[in-house]
């Protein structure tokens, strides 16, 4: 089985991806992670305005068979959450890098992303 690992993103070992645009970092979970979890049925996200630190827990994703904590790839303020996931958590399975995104963080220090895995490194991890 092969999984999408888009090049332009950074990854955590815990399978979150991060995509930065002008200091705002969009976050979701990888194709590999959604496949491991199976049917996602519930996503718990922080509130807009919450402050997160890098690699701390920001929420939970639950599939029928498993519960998995979610970790912030970068520190900063939550400026948007994807509330479509509350009614349609299956978007995480269907489009993990697109409509299944989870939140956006205004990064305190976008350089923090440099510490994360590159696509190539992440691909090695899940191989």
């Amino acid at each position: 089985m092969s999984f999408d690992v888009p090049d332009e993103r950074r990854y955590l070992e815990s399978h979150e991806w991060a995509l930065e645009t002008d200091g705002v970092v969009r976050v979701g979970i990888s194709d590999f992670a959604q496949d491991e979890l199976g049917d996602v049925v519930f996503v718990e996200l922080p509130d807009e305005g919450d402050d997160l630190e890098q690699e701390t827990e920001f929420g939970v994703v639950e599939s029928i068979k498993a519960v998995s904590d979610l970790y912030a790839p970068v520190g900063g303020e939550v400026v948007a959450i994807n509330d479509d996931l509350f009614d349609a958590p299956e978007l995480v399975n269907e489009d993990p890098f697109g409509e299944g995104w989870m939140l956006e963080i205004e990064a305190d220090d976008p350089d923090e992303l440099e510490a994360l895995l590159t696509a190539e490194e992440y691909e090695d991890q899940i191989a």
Partner: protein
Amino acid sequence: MPLQTPPLRGIHDERGAKFTEFGGWDMPVEFDSIQTEHAAVREDVGIFDVSHMGQIHVTGPDATELMQRLTSNDVSRLGVGDSQYAAITDEDGTVIDDTVVYRLPDEGETPQDSHGDGDADGEPTYLFVPNAGTDEATHERWLSYRNEWDLEATVDNRTDEYAMFAVQGPNAVDLVASVTEDPVGDLERFEARYATIDGVDCWTARTGYTGEDGFELIVPWADAAEIWTALDCQPCGLGARDTLRIEAGLLLSGQDFDPEDNPRTPYEAGIGFTVALETEFVGRDALAAVDAVGVDERLVGFQLIDRGVPRHGYDITTTESRVIGTVTSGTMSPTLEKPIGLGYVPVEYAEPGTTLQVVVRGQSKKARVETTPFIDTV
């Protein structure tokens, strides 16, 4: 300890299954997705490899007495080709395991003799199906009581000789009937007979663990691949098996009751209908005493009203947050698209409609007691 592997491990792997350890066996948990597999069983037909289930074979002049004295139901009511759900209880009435007891054709008859209803003129013979990983202890239990009571019966653990498949769903009967040389559609619920598929005699029982119509087939390990292939439909893993049985309000041994971690009588577990107090069996006197005074706690079904998913081990509380019980099973119901679960609560909180709370990761979520099964079942 190395995991036991079902005979079709390789075939499932090629089909792309994910595997999980269950009761000491390496079993397929998911082939496509739990929701896809679950929906196939509710709307069409799906097949499960449940070869991890134990198979214990009991025969001899005293086989009926041995079965009667070690299971809670009335084995004397079983004619050849009948089966019944029963609890295996300890002296104190605690459920050790639950099982289905099948009465096979009498020993000495060939399967061919008994493709009809069979005549009970030889040694009575039973096959029962303890849960995954309990077959050895169960086999020991049967042998030790047989010896203690000095009964004439042969008890064989045939778990490694038989594969078991469950074909379940509204179209299951048509599918199985289309590949068997013998009729099977006339069998009623809990009736069984040998039916031949590609020349292989398969013990074909109208039983299941999904709430749907269908069959469970017990087939020789060596012919398992042939039979699995002949019964061509959506393969389903243990993941969907779990969501289906929770919707149907059916118990999982070791989870909804456990002799060590959560000892329960059949009455508490909601399977009092398996207890035939007019028979003599281990645990009977203790259960008669419980029956006389009633139970303090009972297994109930509930639905979460707030968002969240109940899971095994979560606390159940009153609306004032006093802990009164524990979730034993829970899931997001694929059919209802609601979070549902099972758990034990004091009987005063067991009435359908009662409002409770379930503590999900430190947060109290509103829940309501529901009647089970959660869905319409056969």
